[in-house]
Structures are given as C-alpha cells and as structure tokens.
C-alpha cells in the first residue's frame, strides 16, 4: 500500500483497467479494514469499499504527492462511510441514554490490557460489532481513525458531549465484555 508507484497511479488516471485492478488489489485490505468496522457484514463493507474505490479513481487527478497515499485513501474511505451514514440517518436507533460516569474499575486494567493484547482480532471485532451503531461509529472514529470529538460531532451531526458519551459507553461496554472473557483469556495467556 505504501509503495504504490506514480506510474501505477498515472495509468489508473488514463483509465487502464489492469492498473485499476492492481490498485484495487493493493488497497483492498486496507480499505476493507476501515469499512468492516462501520458496518455489520462483509457484503455491506464491500459495497462501501467499492464506492470508496470509485471515488479514489475519479479523484486521482486531484491527488497530490505531498500527502501519503494511504492517508488520502483512508480519508476518502471514511468520508464515504460517513456519507452513507448520513443518507440513512433517518433510521434512528433507539438507545437508552444512561447517565454513567467513568465505569467502576471492577477488573484490573493491566490484566485487561494484557488479555486484549493476546485476544484474537476476530473476537475483538465481534465484540465491537455488538456495540450500538452510533457508539461503534464514535469508538472507531476516535480510537482507531484518530478523529477528535469536535470532528466526530460535525461528521455525525451531534454535540461533542454526545460524542464523548458514546465513546465512554463503548469503552466501558467493551471492557465489560472483555472482562467476561477474561478467565478464558488468562488461561490462554498462561
């Protein structure tokens, strides 16, 4: 992904289908790892990926070499995901907003992190998928994609406070679920 050559991009701009396939192959894993975090199944993620890839192709002419290509692709992919979310925004999810402060640290944070490190990525992904959609989106945008609460609030049309609430909610829920897995994980670790 990092070593995409200028010549490949140039051929993609010239609508060379082979070059486009090559680029698709190179970007697929990276883009899919973003898309899959925001939707519930691989088919939807692939549809999003294809839309994002189409945008990458159509905007290649505007791409400047100063920006790392993966970063540029990531931005486009996340924007595609957010656009999709905005389109379907009418389907509001119903959540009970509970007023909670920082959840009690019932479990040892250090051992929790150790377990996460040893945790299977698919299992972790499965746990994240269990989160409510908005909380999952905020969690992904903040923790994985590195957006600030202000940006997330703008993107998702919510207040910064709500964004923070969702992040805390997601974190605590994850910790809670990982804690349930903790004995098994400890066993694996030992």
């Amino acid at each position, binding site marked *: 992904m990092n070593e995409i050559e200028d010549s490949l991009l140039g051929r993609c701009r010239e609508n060379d289908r082979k070059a486009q396939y090559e680029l*698709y192959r190179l970007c697929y*894993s990276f883009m899919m790892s973003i898309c899959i975090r925001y939707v519930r199944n691989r088919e939807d993620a*692939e549809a999003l990926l*294809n839309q994002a890839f189409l945008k990458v*192709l159509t905007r290649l002419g505007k791409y400047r070499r100063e920006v790392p290509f993966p970063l540029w692709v990531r931005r486009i992919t996340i924007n595609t995901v957010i656009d999709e979310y905005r*389109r379907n925004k009418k389907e509001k999810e119903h959540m009970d907003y509970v007023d909670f402060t920082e959840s009690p640290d019932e479990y040892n*944070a250090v051992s929790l992190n150790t377990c*996460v490190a040893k945790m299977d990525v698919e299992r*972790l992904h499965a746990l994240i998928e269990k989160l409510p959609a908005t909380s999952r989106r905020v969690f992904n945008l903040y923790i*994985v994609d590195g957006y600030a609460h202000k940006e997330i609030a703008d993107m998702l049309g919510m207040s910064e406070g709500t964004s923070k609430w969702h992040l805390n909610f997601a974190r605590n829920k994850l910790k809670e679920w990982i804690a349930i897995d903790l004995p098994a994980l400890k066993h694996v670790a030992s």
Partner: protein
Amino acid sequence: MKEQEQFDELIRSKLESRRFTPGENSWEDAQRLIDAQQGRRSRRRLLFAAALALLITGSAAVWLASGKNGPGETAQQHSGAGQNANAGAGNENASPGDANVSGNENNSANENANASSGNESAAGKTGAGSANANPNAGGDVKTAGVNGSNKAGTNAGTNNAGSNAQQNDPGAAAGKQPGNNRSTSGKNTQANAAQNKNAGTAPRGSNGKNKQSSSGTSGTAGQRGNDWATGGSSGGDPKRAEDRAGIAAGTHDVWEENAGASGTMKNTPNDKGAGSSGASSDSVSQPVAAAAASGDPSQDPKAALAATSDSTSASTAPLSTTPSAQNPLPSKGYWFARGGVAYMPGFTSDNGSGRSLNPVIGGGYSYGFGSRCRVEASLQYTSIGNASDSSRIYTAYTYSFGSDLARTEIGLKRLHYVALPLHFRVSVNAKNAFLAGITPHYLVSTESKERTYTQRGTTILDDKTKTVFGYAQGIRSFDALLSAGYARSLGERWDLVLLFNYGLGDVKFDDRFALLKKERHKNLQLQLHYSF
C-alpha cells in the same frame, strides 16, 4: 489513564492488523461501478454536447434569419421597433431635403421613396449615390417620379445604394446630401423610437408614392425633405414647395424656418417624429453639409467621402421587411401562465415504472433583452405518476402470538414536485423560438398506497387500503432537469411550447433500493403559454 491509552492503542493496532483478500466477485462489482460511472460521464458529456449544439444551432438560426431578411431586420433590431424604421425614413427625407437646397424636389421625392422603405441607411445610400452620380443641381422630376412611385417594399428589399444612385437624378442631391444622410442614418434609429408613434402604421407601398394620404409618417417625411429644400434657399419650384409644405403640415414649419434661416438643417425639439432625429444628426453633420452646399460634391471631398461611407454603412444597414416588423415585439417584461401535460416514458426502459401522463401548471415572469432573447423564470407544479414498482414497496411485519402476521405494504403512487424552470428563449422570428435551460425540482411530497392486513395461515384478515402522503424515504428531494424546447406563437398572447427535460440525477437512492439502474426523471412536455 495510562492504562486507558494503552487499551485504546491495543485495540487500534489489533483492528488495523486485520488482513483481507478480495473475494471472487469483488473486482467484478467494482468494475460495474466504474463502468456505470463512466457511462454517466459520457451521458453528461453527450448532454452537454447536445445543449451546446442546440445553442449553436439556435444562434446560427438567428444569425441566418437576420441575414436572409436583409438589412431591414438589422435596422429594426437597431431601432428596437418596426415603427422606427419608418420614422427613420422620415428623417432621411428631411436630410435629402436639406441637400436639395439647390432646388431639386425630385431628389427629395426619390429620397422619400427610399425613406419609405423604412431604412434610413438606404436613404443615406441614395444620397451618396446621387452625390457621386450627378452633381447637377437640377431636379429630375421623372426620376423622382419613378422613385416616388416605387413601392417602399421594393426599395426596402432590393434597392441598395448603387441602384438608388442610378435611379435618382442625383445631381439634385448635391454635396450636402451625403453629409446629412450620414448623420441622419446615424441617429434615426435611436432617436425616433420615442417620438414617432405613427411610424409603425405607415404602409410601405404608399410611402413610396409620397402621397399625402398614404401615410402620415413616411409621406410627411418625404414632404419634409421638399419643404426643406424649398425653404432652404436655392430655388426649386416654389409651387411645389408650397404644395409640399401644405402636405407637410404643421410639423414642418420649423424645418422650413430653419432651412430658410441658415441653409442647413437644424431641427428643434418641437419637431415631431423624424424631424427630431434629423435635427440632432444634422447638427453633427453640419460642417459636411455646409461644405457641400454648393451643390457640387466634386468640390467637396468630405461630402464625397461621407457619401462613400454612407454607402458602405448602408450596405450593412437593413431594411425592414420581416413579419416581425409588422408585429411589435413584446414588452420587456411580462407575466405569464402555463399549463399542459408531461409525458414521462418511465424511469428506465426495461420496466414501466414511472410511465405516465402528468399535469404541469404554473406561472412566471419573462424578461426580454435584445430584440430576440428572453429569460423566463417560473414556478410550477408537476408530478410523476405510476411511480411504484417492486423496489418501492416497504413492508413491515408484526408477529403477534406467533400465529398472526400483521403486514403493512406501502407502494409509491405519485411523486409531487415543485419546479423552478429557468429558460433562455431565443426567437428565430415572430412566430418561432427555441428554449433551453435548467429546471430544478423539489420533491414536495409523495403519494402512496398503504395496505394493511393480517395474515393468519393462508387467510387474509382486515385488509384495508388507503392513500397516504409523505413516505419519501429513498427518494431524492432535489433534482434538476436540463430542458430544451421549441415554442410557436399562436397569436398575440398564446404560445405552444414543446419541451424535453432530462434529469441530471437519479430520482431515488441506489443504495436504498439496492439497484444500480439509473432512474432519471425525463419527460416531454406540451404546454400552452399565456402572456399577460
């Protein structure tokens, strides 16, 4: 806190470490999207090319129409109204009259004939031709008679500077004529519009004859020239002069006085119609006219030059012979109402969804600029009927006690739009016009059929159907259609408009309906257009 950051970091690195490989069909799906995008692009290019071609064709049609109709049309365009052309003629007559200080009434008559063609430039040419052709100050009654009896239409359509010069006995025109003509032709078209109200009613044929009865404007204008000539100084036939003066009537008194006083043409603001513009123009051309007063253009290079230039300008200055010259152009701005039907062939060619006849009704404002172009903005209602297909049926299931299945099916029937057409309209002539523009649409509401029933086993219970509004999920709120069309005038206030519209975007969201078909709003509208 550190543990939390570590927790976040661990999650990030875990999630980013996931690796995926494309599925078998992944690239095929992507390719389909790419192809669809390219198809859209080529369609857009095609549409753009079509719009451009339409614009170019329209412009060419306008240009050709202008060219075919000869100089008169241009003159009319320049003056902004058909009336002015005749008014200009009056002025021309006045100018030659001035030139006829030498006493050539015939030349004046000739000028009248030309002037009656409604083209001041033609008069200019005549003057020019006269000056060059015959420096003799004597009038040629026959020539004048010939020209005078010429129908204005003939002069307007066929005479040019050269022919006028030959027909006239131009010696009489003398050196002054060119100067006057030139100046007159330069001014008439602008000045007369406001002043000469009668000009439009002047029959061209009768103008040519310079009969008193033929037309107030042109005939009078012709006399004016004679009056001027007679009153000027030099001689001509006093009787004729008086006669003409009598014909010329009150409006020309001033001319006579001016002529008598100075020997050059100086109008006053009291002059009506042609006279006024002649005045201003003469003031510009006085030096030339005065220099040429000797009646020998050969002695006055300026006059000759002026004559030449007049001839040149005359060749480009047009005569008013088109139908539009008889039909006054519409006022600058007016309100209109329109109504009709729009035939929608369907969203796509492979199913009948959307195929319907729909009403179009609305009104707006039309603003003209130039003599042929208008911009029309309006507000109108339209709809797309028969909008339902299987992809647009929302179904909700509710199970109760594990045996009854309550279902609600919502099928779209009609999409209601408010549209804001903005059209650019170019008139080819008084009857025909082309339109092109854009028509933004806003989805006001949708009309759907809601069916609710309960299914118990194979039995349907409580089956109810009603019409509901507002189920617009998945339908785009905004759309814009490119429009191109043709309008034909059916009378003073009615137009028949045939308009083709093609949507720039999809009516619905693909993702919602899981279709990649491009469902465009397109229709062929037949409208009646009433101007207030």
